[in-house]
């Protein structure tokens, strides 16, 4: 798209990574604060960028502020590199930050993602940037920002626990499948972003830094490496991840999050890995069903 536009040949006039240097510094300061107070939502001055709010602008601004020419960027949406929004964001950075991009989790230095955390454990030299629509885990229970900030300040999270209690009393289970809240370092309650709860345990003591960017809601928060991240639960109803009866129809993986693929109008389906990089890696290593 950018190639079609007037920006062609004028890219040098835009700042590296699209944002101007002062904005990037402001965002980096917010990130530093976020890293220092794990799970705390740091307000930041969100800027309009060429993609619409709600489509990953928070993640894009974080990535734009930390990316450098030697970085290698992977962008995924729903676990896949070929989804339209992921393609669009990857192209944006290839253009405005002139970085190499990759589809392989292992090669990336920065992974920007929406709705998934890669299956392959991330390493010390990698940063995961998550796009976040609603950074406030209490928002589903309390609409007022004044109120939720107080609840965080006093670490008063009984209300969230009430929600779990009600689920168990009514349905026998905790009825939350994604965006399942976590307690970070035993202090702040945080949203892992709308990843399936399957991905929550990957945040616990991850070797990689995870930065969460919510553009529309103007918040950045982070989980530094090796931080304790506990999905909230009851002692006698412990947190559980999703499980499947089948394995991936392509690579045979039994330990990955599976998408249900529709095969026809008759409702026939099969399951394959949602993380395309993981699936391809396994296939090239000779695994198959």
């Amino acid at each position, binding site marked *: *798209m*950018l190639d*079609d*536009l*007037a*920006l062609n040949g004028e890219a040098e006039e835009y700042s590296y990574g699209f944002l101007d240097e002062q904005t990037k510094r402001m965002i980096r300061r917010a990130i530093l604060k976020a890293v220092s107070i794990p799970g705390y939502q740091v307000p930041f001055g969100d800027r309009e*960028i*060429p*993609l*619409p709010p709600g*489509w990953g602008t928070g993640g894009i601004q974080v990535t734009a502020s930390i990316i450098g020419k030697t970085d290698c960027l992977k962008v995924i949406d*729903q676990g*896949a590199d070929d*989804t*339209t*929004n992921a*393609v*669009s964001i990857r192209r*944006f950075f290839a253009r405005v930050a002139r970085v190499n991009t990759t589809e392989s989790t292992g090669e990336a230095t920065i992974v920007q993602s929406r709705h998934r955390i890669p299956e392959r454990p991330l390493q010390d030299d990698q940063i995961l940037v998550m796009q976040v*629509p*609603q950074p406030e885990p209490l*928002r*589903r229970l*309390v*609409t007022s920002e004044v109120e939720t900030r107080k609840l965080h300040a006093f670490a008063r999270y009984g209300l969230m626990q009430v929600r779990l209690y009600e689920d168990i009393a*009514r*349905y026998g289970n905790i*009825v939350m499948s994604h965006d399942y809240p976590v307690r970070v370092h035993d202090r702040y309650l945080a949203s892992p972003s709308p990843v399936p709860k399957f991905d929550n345990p990957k945040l616990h003591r991850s070797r990689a830094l995870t930065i969460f960017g919510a553009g529309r809601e103007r918040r950045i928060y982070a989980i530094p490496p090796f931080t304790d991240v506990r999905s909230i639960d009851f002692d006698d109803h412990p947190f559980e991840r999703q499980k499947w009866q089948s394995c991936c129809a392509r690579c045979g993986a039994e330990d990955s999050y599976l*998408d*249900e*693929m*529709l*095969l*026809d*109008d*008759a*409702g026939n389906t099969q399951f394959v890995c949602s993380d395309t990089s993981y699936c391809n890696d396994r296939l090239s290593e000779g695994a198959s069903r």
Partner: protein
Amino acid sequence: MITSIKGGEKAIDASHQLLSKRRRGDPNVAQLSVEQIREQLSLAVDRVMNEGSLYDPTLAALAIKQAEGDLIEAIYLLRAYRSTIPRFGFTLPLDTASMIVRRRISTTHKDVPGGQFLGPTYDYTHRLIDFALLDGCDDEDGLPLPDSDQVEDLHLHHDAGFISRTGLVEEELPDDSQEVADITRSPLTFPSTRDQRLQNLVRGDEGFLMALCYSTMRGYGRNHPYVAEMRHGDVSVVMEIPEIDLEAGIGTVQITECRTIHLTVGKSETPPRYTRGYGLLFGHSERKALSVAVVDRALRGAEFGEERRYPAQDEEFVLSHSDSVAASGLVQHLKLPHYVDFQAEQQLLRRLREDYDKRASEALAKENDDA
């Protein structure tokens, strides 16, 4: 000397002349033709047709021209014109499954039977001002489409064709036999029915509905929407003509149809499932179609035992304030003279103020006595 704003006949005439002059703008610049508006500002035309409740792109374009691009004013023009045309019958329900699809997406699965068609969309454009358009020497012939992308006759099942088979989704309305309300002829009643609501929402102000939809997504009445299917394209309009006992196609219209599904655990006596929201709009109006579908679902709370707590869930609030023509009318009536009631109110205020001053001085005196 103070002059009152009275006897404004001359003033009104002069105002209208000024309006025409402003509408024409700089006479050295070529005048806009209605055809140009219809063909090149088609999304504005679509909005005016929806809220104006009349499918006529040329008239809508004319209204936009006449209103200098003020879409709410244009909508009002179209509505007023609509009152003058007789109704000579009803078409059969549109068969949207046989739509000639220009665009079709589903978000619940990576791929769906029949395929996803990105079609024309701003979704994945990067919002950078295209200075090439400034010179007027833009893509004169339109972007040539590769042959393979030419619109084909695609008859695609609705999401009902695949998602419903999971057994987890609410059935769509099973029949068309019941009489359909017409809110343009008979007034809305409360509690409202779903057909009334859907009609009201389609005519409703796009900004208002979008804000309501947005509020549900920010916690003011969450209802967990997924876009099961959004499609846009052409459908034929068919009428039954009893005199000759025939069904006859009378033309095609462009529409946008949006189906949302919403996780609903609901009452204990109903199975947990996905329930539906629906929006059908003229032209290419995805933002509005989505907003209508999500608000439609929000307003169905009573069916599923949901507490009515937030604006988007309150049918009286939503349906009574959705209409841009009505809202614009009342808001702008504040510019009418109001000096008679102002005078009456001022008198009242003076009396209240006197009472207050008296009480305050009494209290002060008492305090001084106490001290």
